[in-house]
């Protein structure tokens, strides 16, 4: 029985959003430093408790003032200073390595209340607009430029590296280098409003060739949908004023680009499974699903229209 809570605790060390299960160069360095510090802290803890046990119970004669003074100077000042110096040195040595320049691919991510605007800048190609889901090539250093126009957000993919704030009026740099393929999760790490906890994104790390193919698909206009009832309803109700679906008349830039919505694993910035039922629920009740989001709830639309829009969005691969 005792093993059950421990297993529950250890489960938190792995998975798609754990700094202790690293999948990137920076995360690996930080995790290594963490484990080294944890082991060293454990050793010090055992030593201190052992000494306390010895001093309070085992030792029969009292400490001389001289010995006590020495213990305080060495155990309380000299050794901690040396340990701190070693930790500081390792931390400082890591900094230039982690900030080394990225490869040719740049990705601009802009924090919005409460989603992520993503723009890929492939070398020599036109920018590719996307949102709420990242796809990255494995083994390549990718440089992120991070900005925001509303409030402070923070961009964090724990499995790949450290977090970096997005601050209005500034553009911050972050370089991530995924070291293995897989699906990971990132989150906003700075309280940014009512739906801060509902502001996440998915990261899919793939082989470079697969990435190139994916980027070419993402750059293309939406393949499906011309003449679909959902497309007509989407345009008739003005959804295109805020959302873009390239290849249609929808050119809005206020909300997330929906051109390839169906190819994203999640809906609403990493919070819902991307299913027709969830898309319909999001359209009708976004105010409940994502409080304080800028999109109004469209519960007044006919159920058939909502279902048609949800179905059409599901065709935008």
């Amino acid at each position, binding site marked *: 029985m005792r093993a059950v809570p421990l297993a529950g605790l250890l489960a938190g060390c792995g998975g798609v959003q754990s700094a202790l299960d690293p999948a990137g160069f920076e995360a690996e360095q930080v995790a290594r430093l963490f484990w080294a510090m944890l082991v060293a802290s454990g050793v010090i803890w055992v030593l201190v408790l052992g000494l306390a046990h010895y001093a309070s119970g085992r030792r029969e004669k009292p400490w001389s*003032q001289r010995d006590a003074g020495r213990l305080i100077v060495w155990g309380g*000042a000299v050794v901690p*200073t040396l340990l*701190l*110096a070693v930790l*500081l*040195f390792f931390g*400082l*040595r890591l*900094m*230039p390595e982690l*900030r080394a320049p990225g490869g040719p691919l740049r990705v601009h991510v802009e924090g919005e209340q409460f989603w992520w605007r993503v723009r890929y800048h492939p070398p020599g190609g036109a920018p590719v607009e996307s949102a709420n889901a990242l796809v990255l090539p494995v083994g390549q250093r990718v440089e992120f430029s991070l900005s925001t126009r509303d409030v402070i957000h923070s961009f964090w993919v724990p499995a790949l590296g450290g977090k970096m704030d997005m601050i209005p009026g500034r553009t911050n*740099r972050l370089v991530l280098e995924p070291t293995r393929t897989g699906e990971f999760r990132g989150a906003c790490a700075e309280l940014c409003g009512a739906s801060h906890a509902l502001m996440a994104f998915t990261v899919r790390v793939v082989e470079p060739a697969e990435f190139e193919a994916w980027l070419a698909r993402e750059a293309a206009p939406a393949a499906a949908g011309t003449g679909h009832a959902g497309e007509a309803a989407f345009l008739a109700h003005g959804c295109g004023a805020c959302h873009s679906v390239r290849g249609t008349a929808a050119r809005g830039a206020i909300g997330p680009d929906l051109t390839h919505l169906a190819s994203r694993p999640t809906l609403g910035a990493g919070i819902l499974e991307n299913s027709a039922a969830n898309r319909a629920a999001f359209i009708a009740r976004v105010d409940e699903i994502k409080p304080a989001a800028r999109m109004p709830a469209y519960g007044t639309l006919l159920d058939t229209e909502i279902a048609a829009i949800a179905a059409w969005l599901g065709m935008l691969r």
Partner: protein
Amino acid sequence: MLIHNRRHANLWTLLAPPAIWAVHFLLCYVAAAIACAKGGGPWVDLTSLRWVILGITLPALGLILVAGRQARRHWGFGTDDPPHDQATDEDRQHFLGYATLLLCALSFVSVIFVAMPAITIADCR
């Protein structure tokens, strides 16, 4: 001089070592900020600044050692154990000397920690 050949300890001699740390910190920080702001980009080579920081750090450490020597004399070379809490001139001197000596140790380590980034960081990233 405040840190050398003072007959008696007072609050000024007590404050001298942390003041050396503060001035050293400001000089390093401001020099790096100016070098990076005027350099025009994150790739500015900081080799000369790193030598400047070494050139500020060694004198700062030296001054703290000198202050420590004086503090040890004011403390009475440890002939008398703390807490030095009697209302006598001698105990007041020993107390100030001892406190200054401890502040010297703290300032010495702090100056080293402030200068340590210059060992590993070579540009403005």
